[in-house]
């Protein structure tokens, strides 16, 4: 029996049990990770899982059931059970669910990959991490850490509307960090970002970031931070590096434009959104420089795919155009409830989890400046980069971020290093204060986006570049 056969059997059983729509995903996922610390490999883990998840719609109520058994009998039972669960949902029914129309597609898609990361010798991968962390340790790190992660995912999707899509995604990435311990505090510097850089690419991504070339620098910078002056407190002009701006986009734009949040479907846990659908197309989100796209077609980005987990083909779309909010991340059911005509942003963390609205690649279009020009044009301010902490309220308005490192900006030049830089604000006010944006876009990968109950971890991408914001409160501390 092929995986398509198993998925088909599950869908047919769900329909036979009374569902008016059903879909099923067989997934086979391999995950490999390695951690190094202070020049030694700490752990090598290789996980593998496979199974089938079935979604059934009875009336306007959903049911979902998943099992790791891929026999025909198990698949049929899973389909029938999903329908039985959906029937229980009808006891507490909601509004009419009309799925947004999607062309039933038969297709096969694979991400591009020059060097299959699972075929790279473990010894080579281990040498990379152990050498980089040994180098950091030699240059002053008390704790030098390195990590790589690899995911190899195959999916077979079948729907009762006629979808039959298989996909093969290969994702990987790596990073290093150096922590120093002072009398009463710690300082950390990371490269290329906290937890590393990730993409839907092969091992060539890891080769390009060249961890070893940055190992000494981050240790020395972390050591220097211990005696650097504290970030001043007050309102100032803030220049953010691209890595930090990527997380700013993720938290204060990406989650805010998730349609399930806007509709209140995540109110009990992740929260809602400050955005009101009635203002889609007219609400001022940020300055004219703010152009945010939702684009799962970016080659190699961590939020890229051929089709989402409802079989909707990947397509780019504006979320914010010239500062005005114009688009959302949607699924077929949420779009139907909201009266929108597009979906395409639904994914699940494995076969055992329900597909839900997730970010794909959500990021900025390039601006007209360079970081050098932004710093040169700034008389007095603070430059911060590389995220250290992040927190935002349940409506995605009130945020506070901490960065690993800050620098004074005086008379158009970078000055002293600053420790414990933090900044805080309210989303739309902050974005409306963006008055300079660089063209130096990097698409950062975030492999740890949490959402949903049961909890799911999502992989997202965020094109971002350095930018300047005015009148921002910085230096918040306990």
């Amino acid at each position, binding site marked *: 029996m092929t995986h398509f056969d198993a998925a088909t059997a599950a869908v047919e059983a769900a329909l036979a049990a009374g569902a008016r729509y059903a879909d099923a995903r067989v997934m086979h996922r391999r995950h490999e990770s390695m951690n190094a610390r202070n020049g*030694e*490999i*700490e*752990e*090598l*883990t*290789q*996980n*593998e899982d*496979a199974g089938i*998840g079935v979604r059934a719609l009875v009336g306007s*109520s*959903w*049911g979902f*059931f*998943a*099992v790791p058994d891929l026999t025909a009998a198990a698949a049929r039972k899973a389909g029938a*059970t999903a329908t*039985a*669960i*959906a029937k229980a*949902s009808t*006891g*507490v*029914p*909601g509004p009419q669910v009309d799925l947004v129309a999607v062309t039933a597609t038969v297709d096969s898609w694979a991400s591009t990959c020059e060097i299959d990361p699972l075929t790279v010798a*473990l010894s080579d991968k*281990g040498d990379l991490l152990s050498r980089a962390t040994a180098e950091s340790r030699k240059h002053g790190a*008390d*704790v030098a*850490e390195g*990590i790589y992660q690899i995911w190899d995912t195959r999916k077979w999707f079948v729907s009762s509307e006629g979808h039959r899509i298989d996909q093969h995604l290969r994702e990987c990435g790596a990073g290093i960090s150096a*922590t120093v*311990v*002072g009398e009463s*505090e*710690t300082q950390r510097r990371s490269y290329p970002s906290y937890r590393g850089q990730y993409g839907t690419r092969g091992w060539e991504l890891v080769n390009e970031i060249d961890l070893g070339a940055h190992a000494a620098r981050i240790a020395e910078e972390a050591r220097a931070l211990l005696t650097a002056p504290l970030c001043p407190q007050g309102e100032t002009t803030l220049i953010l590096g691209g890595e930090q701006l990527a997380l700013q986009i993720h938290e204060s734009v990406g989650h805010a434009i998730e349609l399930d949040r806007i*509709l*209140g*479907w995540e*109110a*009990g846990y992740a929260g809602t959104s400050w955005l009101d659908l009635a203002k889609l197309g007219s609400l001022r989100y940020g300055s004219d420089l703010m152009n945010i796209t939702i684009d799962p077609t970016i080659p190699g980005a961590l939020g890229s795919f051929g089709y989402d987990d409802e079989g909707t083909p990947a397509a780019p779309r504006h979320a914010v155009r010239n500062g005005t909010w114009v688009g959302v991340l949607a699924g077929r059911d949420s779009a139907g409830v909201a009266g929108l005509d597009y979906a395409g942003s639904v994914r699940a963390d494995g076969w*055992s*989890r*329900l597909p839900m609205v997730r970010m794909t690649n959500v990021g900025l279009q390039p601006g007209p400046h360079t970081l050098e020009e932004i710093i040169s044009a700034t008389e007095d301010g603070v430059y911060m980069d590389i995220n250290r*902490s*992040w*927190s935002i*309220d*349940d409506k995605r308005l*009130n945020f*506070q971020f901490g960065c690993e490192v800050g620098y004074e900006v005086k008379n158009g030049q970078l000055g002293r290093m600053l420790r414990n830089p933090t900044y805080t604000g*309210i989303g739309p*006010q902050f974005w409306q204060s963006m008055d300079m944006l660089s063209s130096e876009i990097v698409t950062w990968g975030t492999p740890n986006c949490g959402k949903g*109950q*049961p*909890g799911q971890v999502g992989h997202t991408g965020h094109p971002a570049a350095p930018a300047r914001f005015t009148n921002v*409160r910085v230096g*918040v*501390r306990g």
Partner: protein
Amino acid sequence: MSTTVDTQLDVASRVLDLVRDAAGSGAEAEVLVSRQELALTRFANSYIHQNVADAVTHVRLRLHLEGRTAVGSSTQLGDGLRDLVDRTVAATRLSPLDPGWPGLTPPSPPPTSGNVDEATVAATPDERALRVRAFIDAASGLNTAGYFRTNYVSAAFANSAGQSAAGAMTEAAMDGIARTATSDGVARLASVRLADIDGSVLGTRAAAKALASQNPVELPPGQYEVVLESDAVVDLLRNFAMWGFNGKAYLERRSFAQLGERQFDEAVTFVEDVTTPRALGLPFDVEGTPKRRVEFVANGVTRTVAHDRRTAAQAGTESTGNAHPAARAFGPIPLGMTMVPPGPEMPTEEVAGPAADLSVMALVSGVRRGLLVTDFWYTRVLDPRPLVITGLTRNGVWLIEDGEITTPVKNFRFTQAYPQALAPGAVLGVGTHLVAQPGDWGSESFVAPAVRLGSWNFTGGASG
């Protein structure tokens, strides 16, 4: 239950046999076979919008061979077990040397087989929907959202040193909010027993909080005396567990913990103990170390931090049974910690108005001017060593004046060193009623009373 556990022990034993065949008798191997049957009925806008269940068996193999170590896992039984063994043996042989390998857990029986409620195991989608219906119906017509879930975990462990252990646990949990246009209220509870979760009681409480916190006013940020309800106190426990009592962080001096020092108010005692009849959790960890009662803080004095076998060996002590799948890199953490009140635990009762229960009101009555805080949200570490955390309040904040709850208040942002908040002299009262809070991720199960603290550092208001 016993059939499942017996099957799991058989699977573990078969994996050990396969390891012997593939790698010889010199291989040190440990196998954890765990099965989870999780069902979660989720509601929003007062209807069920997501309703999921899954039943998955995981097999985890850790292998130490010729001085090298690797870990593999699979959800595929049958032929999948041989694949798991073969690829883990191959990975181990290619791994670097592991000079810190602490050896396997010796034979040592767990203190209990875990707490299982058969009604929770057998709960149906209809029973879950009924509890959701009860929550919604009790919420005074307010918009509601949340979930009801049942969770059954059974596990068997075996290693090549002769240790063998089996156990199981159940959890029934509900977490829901009621909403008005300007406010939210929450009620949560977790228990071993399905019968303990009453959707009607929780829906009534969530609605009472939401109704009492409508049209809140904005107060200036600053230092406020606070009464933190159990939901908020659990956030303290979670962060203390992750960063403070993490054995690896302690060994690397990234933790504030100093053993034997009076770092907390004498009213503070933190304990982990799965041997009690209402404890949520398996009776052994992923290394097969039996769980035991561990006092992390006793009457204000830091007694120990969490250890797995590796950090215990480095510290010259014994494992506290806190190994978990990510412990090697992140460090062992006590995911089942309880804050134990200094006096006897007392039954409580629901009260009218925004307070969760009578024990909260007893703390409120002593406050001249302060804030009643229901819940914390999105807390993150600014620096792990002093354990400075930023986050926000959520689901209801009120001004307390002369022992009375007077005015609903908008949410605050805070930036607070958690150990400082519980430092000697800082704890002005501890509630007498313990509440088990549902965990958001993984197998955490924290239990806490409400507390009254002398000061909490609010650094921002609702408008920034």
